[in-house]
């Protein structure tokens, strides 16, 4: 899990407290559920924002996530990870939202423009830390954001959970209810998609510049 989640999971007192809260919620204690919401709300807001990449609908989606969480608590197995359970509900809710918004179609049709590719070329290697110069940093962020918007939302979610939330392969396998090798394969494909989107833009840029010189 992310840093905050690791601290929570690593502390036996907090784990016991959370287990007790969940038990109370399951028996219909709404005050206990309110405490559970307060405990997780910041993290859920952040995760939703990471996935849908817009501030507008975060609160509505977060509310739906918590409502779903409450009604699904009877199915939660107490011996499994509660964080993974919360992540799973959040990821599914975000994916439903993106599907409804039809961003899907918009994403697959759009490509990296020559301008984006040219700006991208002018930047230093992306494996370097974010540029210290504010203008460059902003530009880098915009291009990287544009690149991310070109891949399938499901793959984007997986990459965000892996690289931003810093979840391990095991935790991802738990959230997506699949095997570790399947997660590795999906991650590899998602990374290749990102690379392909970038290459496409570069090729278009090269074609354009060769047209101009000839």
């Amino acid at each position, binding site marked *: 899990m992310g840093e905050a989640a690791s601290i929570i999971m690593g502390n036996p007192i907090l784990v016991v407290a959370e287990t007790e809260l969940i038990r109370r919620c399951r028996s219909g204690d709404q005050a206990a559920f*309110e405490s559970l919401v307060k405990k997780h709300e910041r993290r859920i*807001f952040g995760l939703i924002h990471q996935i849908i990449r817009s501030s507008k609908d975060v609160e509505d989606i977060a*509310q739906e996530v918590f*409502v779903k969480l409450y009604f699904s608590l009877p199915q939660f197995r107490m011996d499994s990870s509660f964080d993974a359970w919360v992540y799973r509900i959040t990821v599914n809710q975000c994916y439903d939202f993106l599907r409804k918004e039809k961003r899907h179609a918009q994403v697959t049709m759009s490509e990296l423009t020559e301008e984006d590719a040219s700006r991208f070329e002018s930047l230093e290697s992306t*494996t370097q830390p974010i540029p210290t110069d504010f203008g460059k940093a902003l530009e880098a962020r915009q291009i990287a954001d544009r690149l991310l918007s070109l891949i399938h939302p499901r793959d984007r979610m997986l990459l965000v959970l892996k690289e931003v939330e810093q979840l391990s392969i095991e935790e991802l396998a738990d959230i997506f209810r699949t095997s570790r090798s399947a997660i590795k394969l999906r991650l590899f494909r998602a990374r290749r998609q990102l690379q392909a989107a970038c290459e496409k833009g570069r090729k278009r840029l090269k074609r354009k510049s060769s047209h101009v010189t000839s």
Partner: protein
Amino acid sequence: MSHRKFQSLLEEYADESLLDTKASQELEEHLRLCGECRNQLSLIEWTRGIIRMAQPEEGPLPVPGFSRAVIHELNKQDYLWRPLRLIAMRAIPVMALLAVILGVLAYQQASSLFKQQTPESALVETYADLPSTWGQEGTVISDTVFQDRDRVVDILMEGRFGGTSERNGKK
């Protein structure tokens, strides 16, 4: 370790600290020799850079009272769905019971049909299994089978098997 095995460890290796020292050393040795694995590791690092660079600016924080709003929404939905849930809770056992009753009835019907067909079809099958030397001199066949033979011929010649019994003058 095989190339595939090393390839499958690259994600953990890129996460640092997730592999033990021995596995890391073995993988580093393999990386020196394998261009494909080096490329895959570069791809992991490159995409990580892109994703971390694409971090959206500070997103919205939960407004004060968000948790209260969630509880309010819960009560609203609980109020709306409670009657349906109650109906569903009662309907499920009733439907399960109906399914069991229907299953038993269907089984009884099927077994009675099967029983009705058994004598004739079994008789025909008995004759079908007889040796090709049937009827030739020296073939030993029990008396019962011989007695049944006429019945089988009747069954085969009757309408239900697509013919007529000329021997008995029946249709």
